[in-house]
């Protein structure tokens, strides 16, 4: 009997480990992003160890990249300065018009009253690691549950959406990028309000799937989050339509969207510690038919509150985008 056990030990270990791996996959599949609590201790420990080592390894790499980038950026700074000055004048002019529109519609008081609720605490975080396999697009950031980061928190930059936190340890968090094939965001076209789903294609661009009928999507349209889906607030920039696929006779059509954020050059990001109504709501009148024209997105409000600010109890529930009374 002991001889038999000894002979079977090897195959039993092999089968048991393969079984554990398969069961782990199936169990992990059942869990949604926002349903994940803090990672189990062993995963958290690995993340905790990985984050500082990743930062150590990437520091010289970032240094060299930053030096080169600064040099390249310097070359274009004069032209960019002229362009920005021109753009600033345009934006200031638009701003005056919007304020005027707000005053006449009585919304300015509402803007002031909602200001505290609108501002979402933003926690700056650094990227300390990237997924090494080309099949998954995720990053490791150096902020975790000790900083109030929880799975489901959106991660953004000033250009737009980066992704969503999928797991946290005390001082690190795993973030799934928009480009990941598992990523799907309810979105709308800023100009025409056409709705659809933005999915990662696993490489460098996004796919915007929208209904063919009654949808108006053209190349160059800005695609923003719709606020539905319970993770991203409304009006965050996702990207710009660069190509529209041929209709295949189905109900939906797919447009190729270039992400607003250059996800290959990420260095610093902001974690939105809670979601809430965005500025876009403020430009809407009580009747949907009387929507005011206006900037429909707040790409990323500046980190105006303390990074350690706790999510407010008054924060809007995920998915609820309701006007205050």
């Amino acid at each position, binding site marked *: 009997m002991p001889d038999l056990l000894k002979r079977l030990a090897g195959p039993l270990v092999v089968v048991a*480990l393969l079984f*554990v791996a398969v069961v*782990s996959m199936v169990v992990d599949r059942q869990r949604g992003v926002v349903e994940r609590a803090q990672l189990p201790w062993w995963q958290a420990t690995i993340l905790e160890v990985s984050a500082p080592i990743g930062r150590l390894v*990437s520091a010289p790499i970032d240094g060299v990249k930053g030096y080169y980038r600064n040099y390249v950026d310097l070359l274009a700074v004069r032209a960019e300065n002229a362009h920005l000055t021109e753009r600033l004048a345009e934006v200031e002019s638009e701003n005056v018009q919007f304020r005027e529109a707000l005053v006449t519609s009585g919304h300015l008081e509402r803007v002031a009253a909602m200001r505290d609720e609108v501002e979402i605490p933003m926690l700056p975080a650094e*990227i300390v690691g990237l997924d090494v*396999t080309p099949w998954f697009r995720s990053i*490791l950031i150096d902020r975790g549950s000790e900083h109030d980061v929880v799975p489901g928190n959106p991660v953004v930059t000033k250009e737009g959406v980066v992704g969503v936190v999928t797991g946290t340890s005390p001082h690190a968090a795993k973030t799934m990028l928009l480009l990941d094939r598992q990523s799907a965001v309810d979105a709308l076209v800023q100009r025409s309000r056409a709705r659809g789903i933005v999915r990662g294609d696993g490489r460098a661009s996004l796919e915007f799937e929208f209904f063919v009928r009654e949808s108006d999507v053209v190349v160059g349209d800005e695609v923003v989050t719709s606020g539905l889906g319970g993770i991203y607030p409304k009006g965050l920039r996702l990207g710009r339509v660069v190509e529209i696929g041929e209709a295949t006779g189905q109900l939906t059509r797919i447009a190729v969207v270039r992400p607003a954020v250059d996800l290959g050059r990420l260095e610093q990001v902001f974690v939105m510690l809670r979601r809430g109504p965005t500025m876009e709501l403020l430009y809407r009148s009580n009747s949907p038919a009387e929507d005011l024209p206006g900037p429909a997105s707040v790409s990323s409000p500046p980190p105006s509150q303390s990074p350690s600010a706790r999510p407010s109890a008054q924060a809007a529930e995920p998915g609820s985008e309701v006007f205050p009374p």
Partner: protein
Amino acid sequence: MKSTLAVLALGFAGLMLQGGLARALPPPWCPDLSWLVVVGLGLRWPGFVSGFLVTAVLGFAMDAVSGSLIGQHALLRLGTYLVAAIAARQLDLSGGIPTAMLTFVLSLGYGFGIVATRSLLLVPEPLGLEVFAIAAVQAVVNTLTAGPLIGGVERIVNRFADEEVARRSGLALGHAGRTRP
């Protein structure tokens, strides 16, 4: 035991290093260092079951830092180890070229394995030319960097095997010395 800990340390070092390295060499241009340690284990590790256990630990560790499902890398790394170990016992893989060829094929298979399991459990996607191209690029990168990692595993095996032999032979000589008249 020492050799097991040493090879685990090598695998973890690779895992930590590759996350930071990917900042400079974005995938698929970044080698999967901890996977290469698994290939080295399959090819050079003397104990089949202990190698399998080390592979499982490294696989789950990879799952912890990757965007994969927990168990996905572990399963495929166990598969890689099994194939490498069987190949090492059946074929003559002592030269550099056969080892490089096997690494290339295993890496290619690993890429397809990831896409297949993801298709099965998460998002359906075709196993087309595009997948092949990405997998092939990473297979080339992995093959080019395989030498030092597989060599590292081999050195660990040799180093601790020598110590073990010396320890055992020392005991035997001492015993013989005492019993001789």
